[in-house]
């Protein structure tokens, strides 16, 4: 029995490690390729898309020769990419900050207050979460234009502040918090606001971390919103909208671009890793 269990654990470990390798391989490969020279990358990308039975792509896992040429192109020569990168950072940070004010409070309101229609309201938010972007896209343009925000950074930031998914996520976490927590603080004479700030939020740390990381991932990947709301001001575009164009011409520095694009998400992940795990693990549907 214990032998069998030992074998199972080893088997599981092997399988899991294999899984992990597969999961990580695309990222690892991206980073490795980002250090090959531009001509080498162009050569590699050029060999794609040929439908001949006889040959294989001349593929290596790592570059022939380490070169920073791609990074030089992306970071130094082409100022544009850096600017789009900065835009992306600005959007992600602004959205994150804005959400910090709106989302937890809303989730708190929906979880720790009892009022009529609360469930309906929550249900509606879940519905909104499921809506495809295109449903509200066209009318939203008119709303934004009416407010004079179209073609400004606000057009991308503001709607994202109220993203229903994160309200949902945090609300689900908060609702599982024992009421005793609040009751204890109420006895101490704390109002809902103070309880929220000093008791609820600290307890919610994991889910807040998870939400922050996921929100970052989402804002980092915005494509449709900027393309629709910023059509006239290309200087405001985030990197995510430029990525496909960057890849289109086989300029040889795609991988440095991709690496640059992945890196912040990776750092965020490493930073919030434990929170994300904990946050997601503690959230469930009730």
């Amino acid at each position, binding site marked *: 029995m214990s032998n069998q269990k030992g074998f199972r654990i080893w088997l599981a470990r092997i399988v899991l490690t294999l899984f992990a390798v597969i999961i990580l391989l695309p990222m690892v490969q991206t980073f490795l390729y980002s250090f090959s020279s531009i001509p080498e990358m162009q050569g590699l990308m050029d060999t794609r*898309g040929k*439908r001949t039975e006889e040959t294989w792509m001349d593929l290596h896992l790592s570059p022939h020769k380490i070169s920073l040429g791609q990074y030089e192109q992306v970071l130094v020569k082409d100022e*544009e990419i850096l600017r789009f990168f900065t835009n992306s950072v600005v959007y992600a940070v602004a959205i994150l900050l804005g959400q910090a004010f709106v989302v937890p409070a809303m989730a708190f309101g929906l979880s720790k207050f009892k009022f009529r229609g609360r469930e309906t309201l929550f249900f509606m938010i879940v519905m909104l979460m499921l809506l495809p972007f295109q449903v509200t896209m066209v009318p939203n*343009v008119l709303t934004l*234009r009416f407010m004079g925000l179209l073609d400004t950074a606000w057009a991308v930031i503001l709607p994202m502040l109220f993203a229903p998914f994160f309200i949902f996520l945090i609300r689900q976490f908060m609702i599982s918090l024992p009421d005793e927590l609040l009751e204890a603080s109420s006895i101490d004479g704390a109002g809902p606001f103070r309880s929220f700030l000093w008791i609820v939020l600290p307890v919610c740390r994991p889910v807040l971390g998870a939400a922050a990381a996921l929100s970052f991932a989402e804002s980092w990947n915005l494509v449709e919103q900027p393309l629709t709301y910023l*059509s*006239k001001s*290309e200087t405001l575009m985030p990197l995510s909208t430029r990525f496909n164009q960057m890849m*289109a011409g086989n300029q040889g520095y795609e991988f440095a671009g991709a690496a640059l694009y992945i890196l912040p998400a990776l750092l965020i992940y490493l930073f919030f890793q434990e929170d994300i795990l904990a946050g997601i693990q503690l959230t469930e549907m009730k």
Partner: protein
Amino acid sequence: MKHQIGKKLILWLAALMLLVTSCATAFASPGDRTLKHVSTVNYDAYDSNDLVFRSGDGFCVITSNDTGRYLLKYADTESEPEKFVIEEYNRDSWDEEEEDGAAAEEQVTGETAEAGEPDAEKAVDGKPETAEPAVDTEAESEGQPAVEGLLNWDDIDWSDEALNSEDMPEGFMDGEMYEYVPEPYVNTWIGWNGELYGIGVTETWDDEIQQSHVEGIKLQRIRFEDGKVIKEDTEYPDWDHEILLEALEMDGYFYLNDYVVSGDLLMILSWGMNGQKIVTVNLKTGSVSSIEAGENTVAFTAGPDDTLILASYDWETQKNTIVRKSLADGKDEVIAEYEKGAQSMGLGYEKDTDTLYMVRNGELWKAPLADAANAVAVNDCPLTDCSIVPMGDGFVLLWNRNNILLRNTDPTVRGTIALHVEDNTGYNETMAETVFTLSEKRGDLSVIVNQRYDWRDSSTVLQDMMNKDSGTDIYVLPYDGANFNALKNRGYLADLGDNAEIAKYVDRMYPYIQDALKVDGKIIAVPIGLNGYTFGISYKAWKKIGGTEEELPKTWDQFLDWMEKLPERLEGTEISICNDTYAADSLSGMFMETVMHQHQMRMESKGEEVVFNTPEMRKLIERIYNMDLKSLGMKSWEDEDNTGGYISYDDSAIISSYTTPPMGEQYSGGGYPIALSLAEDEEPIVPVQLYVACVNPFSEHAKEAKEFLALAMENLQLIAEYTFFADKTEPLRYSSYEEDRKRTEKYLEEAKKYRDEAEEGEDKIYAEDSVKMWEEQLEQMEDYSWQMNPETIERYQKILPACRVLDHDFMQEIQSTVSEQDEQLMKEYTGDNMDIEKILSFYDQKIQMIRMEGK
């Protein structure tokens, strides 16, 4: 000396038709003036600004037209100019002058202009000249239409041999040989410290290498007295002319096109073998240096402290970059970047106020140099490509070859009603021209024309429509593009029919054009220009080798048979199958495109689904694909002896690889579209591609926009006018034709008289030749002095029933929506071994999806 006028036929096309509107004061900003404007859509006269420079409170203009070259001195920006003659080409005084020995000072070079070269301009200054900017008649008959050469500055051959060519025969024919006097001539002027200088070039003719040779270059000061110009030597040393010519990559001649003076430096932007560079001459010392300029420089001006300010346009990213370049070390400093940049620009810098001025996207912009990124638009400007001369009082002069405008740079006094035009034609002058016409009529309206060449049809018009954006009032778009089609299908087009004038214009158009412009009784757009190229054939050349109209092919199959047999028929004649340099590379692609357009149009007109992969299309395209154009005698870029070259517009070749349907070329000769059908029992189709202007349905100035478009119908390019309007069927001569003809007839009479009186012998022979020459020239004048020649009109009338506006370009739509994988597939299918079936079914599949999606 009567023979001297032999080469002066130029005058029929260079007659004075000055469309100079001096002093159109009714512009949007107070103080704005149009000091000079020559129409660019259909000009047939030569009138050009060579230089505008500031002098004291006012400014000076050097300008040439076919009567001479003048200096106009404006004491200030408000007064009328004082006029000085720099050199005169006075054709009416030939008779008097021809005897007066002025010719004695001419340079005799013994060389005629090379055959096929464009016309040349006489550039000896300083005294009344007997010569005029003359088109070499040989050049006319062999190469470009003479007008083109004359009117395009860049096409003028400034080489010495061309410059002096017309002098030769007179001297010889009079039997007088002149001693060669190497005297400096001036063809470039500069304003330096408010004074005018000429760059004096001394040339000699080197008999051994049969080429002229620059002996020296030095500055000459120019003064004006009693309405005449006096040229003086200066104390400044000779320039390092050898180094200069080497830097400019000029051999045997000297001419400057793009230059600016700042401080004591003359800076020249030059195009060399290895890209653009800046060549600098120190005017005080004559020393020369040069540095590399960036790529795609579209404008430059002098900056502070021996720097240059350069503007470039990147076609890939569509961005303008303004850099400040140090002349000392060539280092660049980027001072501003603009998205959706202008493809041509104007730049100017004012030292006293450290202000950078720019003309781009239809507006004049201003900013402190250090803050160029935040430039503000201060006025509108219909010129796309111009120089800027700051006048120091808040006004600037904007000038180019055809215009001199004075503009206020105070943004607070700008006109309130501004029409914004997004013009995607890139080269069509109609919109810009209309601005000038409008400004005379409606002083309260200012118009901002943002013109760009947009082959991707990437206008943001659809986003504008979604946003209900009224920022742009008029869009000029390709009629067959996806953007215009979306507008048309969704009704996002203001009805232009409520403007009575537009309605009248449209009613005058050919029915097939009207059909395209009217939807449900509404006029949705007006045509502005023609778009797209196909091949054409020269009926004249065909006739020359004995071909008849009946023999000409009617269907594509017949056409290909006919073409394959052409080399046989051409054998022993001077006519070739096609002169274009890249015909062998490009022609089959053009055939295929035309065939596919035709097929699409015939299926649509039958109401059938468009399917390309049919046995008939496969067969036809396969045949086109397998044709060996090289063996038919066409040139390819792969040929080693292919030296690059020209597209023939004349009758020396049967097939011309470019012609704009449906009219072909308006000038003499050249190819005309041929109406072919896809099958024997079918009607031929000539696909016509249009650029149209439409009004934004959300425009707040729709009324004014329509008024503007009505005026635009008066400013169409001639070829467009004749294509669109059914009542335009009269051939059109150059305005100078009558006068030139009369003069030529008079000379012929005189030559005849001279012959009749001449004694037998040498004199008689010369006189006979002279008569013959005049007779020939009279004949040629009849043939070539057309702005719109009868054959063009006649051909058009014949193919008219076959003309149809292409309303939807599937091919382009497919191209614009393919993914990377699709592109690789297409490459595979169209590669070395084209798989016709696969590529056609590839198209079909996409087309089917597009069709099934519906509108």
